[in-house]
Every structure is written in structure tokens, then in C-alpha cells.
């Protein structure tokens, strides 16, 4: 069995665990730092919107022997923007370049004509509007808003509102980081980018929900025991699903990484970069935020609940007692007789396995 399988076993038994929840301040800090960088990047550099969003100029040439890739290069040199070049049925080329006004398009036309050895007059230049117009954008925002509301309601019903809030925070975190990195790298935003972002939105929530599902299951009977606080159990839950998270992330990232690094990097498929970058960053951020941000955030919110506060108090009291004198376990039920006695008794008796594993865990945490 691979090392990871072994790791899975030890994570399962709680022999080893990373204290995700305990060290949440560190990861909150890291995330806030990255998010601020992303926002600054967005504010300073802005997004480089492609022709589909802001319109631009389209140049139609007469029949020419210049190849599509040559023309792409010429256009890029002439305009400083990425250009979309298509060959027409007539044998001419259609060259679309984003962000052009009339004066700029005239200058580009002359330049293009020189490069392609054509008469400037023979090239038709026209300004084009965005194909991804305001209506598509507005409807997309509207759809997103409705979806967000519905998903929060759904998560609040299926789980609880704290988890819905945490999932939403993680989602915004992922989207901000992805767009921020996009601004910093300076790739042109195409419809592909937006589709990539929407894919991320779906994936980020999906991944968070998988992690939350395990969290919900593990914390079902939390008030019936006094060994662990909510944070402890949240941490165990993350560690328990860690192998799944790693596997899923690897499997999801490998093909995208292939597109980005092999396709975009080595083979030079430039236009693939914009989609694969947003997917790569987004998938990684989505997996990261489910574990390092969303779950600790739920733990924070839950710990603020009076019920959980009381539980944490009892757990602390018990641990202090256990540390003070290594008494027989039999004294423990008496120590929380002020609340929930039968459950506290039943819990350990019915689940000796968890007691044993539990013994390993807190000490493991303190290590």
C-alpha cells in the first residue's frame, strides 16, 4: 500500500493529525494576505478584458498568402494585444483585436498593411461591439445572486446556517484569489475565463460540502460526550477526510495542470492558458479553503454558541481533572453531573473504541 494509504490509516486512528483548527489563525492570516494581494492586484492592474467584453476592432483583409499564425504575430506586434485571427471563405483574413478606438485602429491598420504587404486601403477596418454584451453579463450576475441565496438556504437547511456562511466565505475567498491572480498575471479575460471562474464556483462549493458532510456526521452527538470540544471534532473530521481531499484534488488538478504546464507552457497553446490558469488556481484554492478556512470558520462560529461554550468548559474541566490526578475513569461521570449525565455515561460505555482512540488524540494534539 502506498504511503498515503498508510497515512490514511493513521489519520483514521488519530495517531497522527495536523491541528488545522488549532492553527487556524495562521491560515486565516495566510489567506487574508493572499486575498489582500489579490485585491490590490485587481485594483492596481485591473482586469485585461478581451474583445468579447469590451469590443474592439475587426480588420478584414483581401485574399492573402499570410498564414493565420503569422497574422496573429503581426497583429500582436502592431496592437500590443492578443488578436484572434480567422481565415475567411474568400481567402482573406479576419483579425479581431480588443480595446481599439478609431484612431488606434487606423494606426494598427497601416501597421498591419505594412507587415502583410497589402494596400492599407484594401483592409476594411470596423469597430465591433462586444459579443458578450451587457445583457449576458447582467443576467449572469442575476443568476449568480439567485444561486447564492438559494445555496445558502439549502446549506442552512441541509446543514446549518454557520456552515452556509463559512461555505460562502470560502467561495468568495476562492473567487477573489483566482481573479486577483488573473489580474496579476495579466492574461486577457475571455469568455473562457469567466466559464472557468463559474466552474470554480461550482467546484469550491462542492468540495466544501463534501468536507462539511463528514463534519456534520461526526458532530451529530457532540453534546452527549464531554471528551471533545467542537473544534476537536472538526479537526478530527478534516483529518479523516484528508486522504479523500488529497486524492480528489490530485485527480482534478492533473488534467488541468497538463493543459496549463504542458499545453500552455511547453507546446505553446497560448489561448489555453487563460482557461487552464483560472481552473488551476481555482481548484487549488477551492480544495485549500475547504480545509483551512471553511471548517475552522465553522468551528469558530460554533464555539461561540452557548451550548458549545458549556461543552468546552466541561471538556476543559475534565482534562484538568485528568491531568491533576490520574484517577480511575469512574470518577469522570460525576464530574459533569450538572448536565447531561445519562448521555455522558452512555457515550463512553457504548463506544469503547472511541474512548481508546480519543485517548490517543488529545495527547497527539499536544505534541
Amino acid at each position, binding site marked *: 500500500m502506498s504511503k498515503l494509504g498508510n497515512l490514511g*490509516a493513521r489519520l483514521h486512528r488519530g495517531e497522527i493529525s495536523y491541528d488545522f483548527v488549532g492553527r487556524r489563525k495562521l491560515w486565516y492570516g495566510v489567506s487574508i494576505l493572499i486575498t489582500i494581494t489579490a485585491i490590490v492586484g485587481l485594483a492596481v492592474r485591473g482586469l485585461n478584458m478581451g474583445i468579447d467584453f469590451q469590443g474592439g476592432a475587426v480588420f478584414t483583409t483581401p485574399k492573402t498568402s499570410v498564414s493565420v499564425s503569422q497574422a496573429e504575430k503581426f497583429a500582436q506586434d502592431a496592437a500590443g494585444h492578443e488578436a484572434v485571427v480567422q481565415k475567411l471563405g474568400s481567402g482573406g483574413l479576419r483579425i479581431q483585436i480588443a480595446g481599439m478606438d478609431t484612431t488606434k485602429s487606423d494606426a494598427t491598420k497601416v501597421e498591419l498593411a505594412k507587415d502583410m504587404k497589402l494596400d492599407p486601403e484594401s483592409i476594411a477596418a*470596423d469597430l465591433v*461591439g462586444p*459579443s458578450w454584451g451587457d*445583457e449576458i453579463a447582467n443576467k449572469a450576475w442575476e443568476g449568480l445572486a439567485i444561486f447564492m441565496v438559494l445555496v445558502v438556504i439549502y446549506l442552512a437547511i441541509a446543514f446549518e446556517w454557520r456552515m452556509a456562511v463559512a461555505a460562502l466565505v470560502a467561495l468568495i475567498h476562492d473567487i477573489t484569489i483566482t481573479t486577483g491572480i488573473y489580474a496579476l498575471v495579466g492574461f486577457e479575460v475571455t469568455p473562457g475565463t469567466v466559464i472557468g471562474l463559474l466552474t470554480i464556483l461550482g467546484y469550491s462549493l462542492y468540495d466544501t460540502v463534501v468536507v462539511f458532510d463528514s463534519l456534520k456526521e461526526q458532530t451529530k452527538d457532540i453534546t452527549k460526550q464531554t471528551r471533545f470540544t467542537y473544534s476537536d471534532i472538526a479537526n478530527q473530521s478534516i483529518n479523516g477526510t484528508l486522504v479523500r481531499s488529497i*486524492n480528489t484534488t490530485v485527480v482534478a488538478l492533473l488534467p488541468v495542470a497538463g*493543459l496549463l504546464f*504542458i499545453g500552455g507552457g511547453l507546446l505553446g497553446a497560448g489561448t489555453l492558458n487563460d482557461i487552464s490558469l483560472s481552473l488551476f488556481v481555482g481548484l487549488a484554492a477551492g480544495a485549500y479553503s475547504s480545509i483551512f478556512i471553511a471548517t475552522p470558520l465553522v468551528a469558530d462560529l460554533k464555539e461561540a454558541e452557548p451550548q458549545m461554550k458549556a461543552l468546552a468548559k466541561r471538556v476543559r474541566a475534565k482534562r484538568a481533572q485528568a491531568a491533576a490526578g490520574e484517577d480511575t475513569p469512574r470518577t469522570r461521570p460525576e464530574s459533569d453531573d450538572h448536565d447531561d449525565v445519562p448521555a455522558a455515561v452512555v457515550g463512553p460505555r457504548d463506544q*469503547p*473504541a472511541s474512548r481508546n482512540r480519543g485517548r490517543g488524540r488529545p495527547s497527539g494534539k499536544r505534541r
Partner: protein
Amino acid sequence: MAAGATRAARPEREYEKVAAPKRGRSASAQSKPGRSLALILIAIVALTGGMFASGHTTPRLGIDLAGGTSITLQAQNEPGQPNAINKTNMDTAVEIMNRRVNGLGVSEAEVQTQGTSNIVVNIPKGTNSEEARQQVGTTAKLYFRPVLASEPTGKAAQPTPSTSPSSSGTSGSTPTPSGSATAGQKATSPSGSPTPTDSATSQGRAVTDALKADATPSGTPTAPASGTPKAPASGTPTPPATGSAADQKLQAQYTALDCSDDAQRAKADTGSKPGDPSVACGKISGVWYKYLLGPAAVDGTDVKNAQAAIDTQGAGGWQVQMNFTSAGAKKFADVTGKLAQNQQPQNEFGIVLDGEVVSSPFVSQAITGGQAQISGSFSQQEAQSLANVLSYGALPLSFKVQSMTTVTAALGGEQLHAGLIAGAIGLALVVIYLLVFYRGLSIVAIPSLLVSAILTYVIMALLGPAIHFALNLPAVCGAIVAIGITADSFIVFFERIRDEIREGRTLRPAVERAWPRARRTILVSDFVSFLAAAVLFIVTVGKVQGFAFTLGLTTVLDVVVVFLFTKPLMTVLARRRFFADGHKWSGLDPKGLGAKPPLRRTRRPAGPAGPVDPKEA
């Protein structure tokens, strides 16, 4: 790690003793895996067979991947509305055209303005470009106008007009009807327009240049005015009965009109305002009729939606059914109520689409209920295309096709090639990873991915002809991310099984116990994806909608594959000794997974110091 393999036999038997009672309970649940597997295999075979039978063995590709056709439309200046071509109207036209060609958002057609008065429509290869041209070019101005007078022209024409008695002075004003009486003169008959310009090709029933060129000046003095009635310019929308100058002009125009002539017909109704009476042509049962029509009583904006349907009561042809808005329904009830009191043909109303009467049913009583049908001689495709344009409303301008040309893929061929190679390498890495990590379980994992991939491919190929679905680069990337989501479903399941084995269960109970929990996780998380897909599909338009469709499709397929393939296959395999005995290459070796020793009560001494731990540490 693999050291425990030799010792596997002994504890395994003990595990079975512990878990034995569970087996009986889960036996019924396990009895149907074969059925599920057969079901999905039949589905795959049927879909694949359907794909080959339909002849569409590859998905339609978007413009970015395969190129297509580019149509340039130019907005036409209409008389009386010199400032109609402005940014607002152009943008509205782009929106409406976009919906017409890309109603579901999956056809990957692109519509954008070019310059000040042009609209470029790009449609992917494999689309019927003629149909698309009609879809975008049809103005779809729809009016319901009461019929004041009508008569057949052309072949079956009667020499004497059969106008109704109440119509104002028909015979008096223009005693010489245009040369419409003689049969067989269709194309070359005297025509009212010496200048064959401006004809609205946008109607889809295109006027060919040849016919226009053939048109010769007619001998009818009133004819030249017929193209653009000046009546609206007078600014007084007068009812036909008053016999005003404008009205007489219209009457003259009506008399002069020869609907069997394409050029005349094309411009018969151009420029008329909905509030004024007008003349129009219409082909009813293969014969051209000319109509004198009253002001529009109901118009296209009153139509809420429209759909094509087979006429069940009448002749059985295709028709377009319209549902009116509440205001439209009221207007329609009013006008039909009035018309019902009149004599033939004044109890008819003409359904005028882009200046042509497509149907002129008569009414015998007021039609309430807010529904109406257009039953012309439609083919199925015509009916559907008309319903489509009516649903999305009329264009604010009329357009003329300026050019149609093919364009190559926006994404260069070599780039696509590089992308495919890269994607293949990425997938190979996924397979290797699964093999290394899950070993024997890859027998479940890799076919699950494969089944999912086959289903996705086949369904996308079939959706090409069915709903114009086209696969573009973002959709391909979405499908790649779907690999992650599909994989996640069985990864969740596998990890649950392994957790159960670690608890000390044998494989078969472990599978049956792991499944309900894994199933819940899969359903809950897939529901979120599906919710995103459904909301975005309903609310948005264009490419976002196309994305939502792909997301929804892959999500549903994920659930189908995991329920009908992954789980049953796992159940079947759990019966094989190779897996059940926890062979070290099976990916389910209890030793390798670090399962707990079997006897729980004596766990404490055996537990941490048991035979399992040392080799793992």
C-alpha cells in the same frame, strides 16, 4: 508496508466471524447489482447505437474549435424613421438575434455589432446556415389586422375585385386594376416598382435579384407610390370608412397591387405603421391573395410565447400556437368579438408577419382565453422557427444580409492539437495515479471514468442535432473538471470502504455499510452543483447558459454512473476472492490499510502494540 500479506489469511477468518451477522441483512441489497450494470450497459449501447444511426458521430464543435459561417447583416433605414439606427436599437437587435440563434445558450452562436449599422452573426460549422440566416434576419413584426377587403391575384385571379360593400368607393377611384388578371404572368407581369431596391429580404422569403431585374415598369399610374404609402406621413390615422385622401391612395394602392409579382409583394407593406390601414399579400392554399387591412388590433408584443404544434383539428399541418399576455388576450377578445358581427371577408382578420399575411381566418364569435393559432402551410421546421422568433419578439429594425462567408476556427489548429496532447497526458497521469493509489480498485475507478466519458461524449454528439448543442473550448475544460467531480464520487466511496475495513469489517459488509454514507455525501454535494446549473440555466442567456447546461449534464451523469455502475461493480467485485481476501494488490488489504485487530474486547492489549502497527510505523 506490504509485509503483512503473508499473514493475511489468519486474521481474515476472524474478521468474517465478527461481521457474519451483517451479511444476511445486506444480502437483499446486494442482489441487484447485475441488473444495474445491465441497465447502464444497455443505455450505453442504445445511445451509442443511436449516435451511429443518426450519423452524428462527433459532437458539433463551436466556432473557436471548428470555425463556421459568418453572416453580416445591415440595418435598413425605414421611411419615416430616419434615426431608427442608433445604439439602443442595435443593441436590442443583437440581444434578440442572440436569443433566436442561441435560445438555449448551447449553440455557440455569437452575435455582435460591427460599425454603426451592421450586426455580425457567427454560427458554428454544421449549422444550417440558411435557417440561421432566416432566424436572425426575420424582423418578426406581427400584427393582427382586421381584413377590409381581399381578393386573389395571379393565377387564379378574378377580373373583378370582390371587395365588401362597406369599403369606401373601390371601383370609383381606380377603375383599372393592375395587370394581375392574367394567369401565368407571375414574374414578368407589369410591376409597380421600377427601382428594385430596398426590398426586405429580411422576411426570409427572399426576393431574388433575378426577379427584381426582370421587373418592368407598369402601366398603372398609381403603381410607383405603392411601395411606400405616404398615408402615414400625413399624421392622421384615419379609419378606412372616412374616404380621406390618404385612404383613397391606399385604396388605389390596393387595387394596383399584384401579389403574384415578387417585387411588388415584397414591398407592399413596407413602411406602414401599425396604427394605419395597409395593404398586404398572402399566399393561402397556394394562391396569392391581396388584402386591404385595417389598423393593427393586436401586435407581436402582446404575444407571451409561441410554440409549434401539429394541427389536430384541421388539415393536420404544422401550426404555431401563441399565448397572449393578459392585455393582449383582452384586445384579441375585443377585436374578434367585433369582427364576428361582420360579413365575409370582413369577419376575417389577417395575421401579418413582416408585411405578409400568413393566415386570414374568419371569426364566428369572440375568441377569449388568450390563445391564437397561425396555421399557414408550414413545414415543421418553418413552424418551429416562426414560433421561435415570435417568442423572442420583433427586431426594432429590419436587416438585410450583406454577406455570408465561412470562417476558420478562432483557436488555431496547432493550438488545439497541443491542447489535446496536453489533456491526454494529464488523463494518463490520472490513470497512473489511480493505479498506484488504488491498485486493484482501479478496476472500478478507471471504468467508471470511462463510462462517464463515453456517456458524456455520446450525449453531446446526440445533442448536436437535437438542440444545436455545440462544444466549445470552455465546455471541454468544464468536462475536464468534471473528471475531478466524477472521480471524487468513487474516491469518497472507496475511502468510506477503507474506513470500514479499518474498523475491522470484511469487504462485503464494509461495502454495504460504506455505501449509504458515501451516497449521502455524493447526493448532497452533487445537488449543490446541480442547483448552480439549474439556476444559471434558467436565469442567464448566452454562453453562461451553455456552461450551465454542460455542468448540469455532467452532474447528472456523475450520479447516474456512481449509482448504476460504480456501486454495483463494487458489490460484484467484493465477492471475488481477490478483493474479499484483501490481496495486497487489491487496494483493500486490511494489513496495508492498518485495520484494527478483530476482537474488540481484547483490543487494549493488542491495540497499539498489535501486529499491525510496527510495520506501519
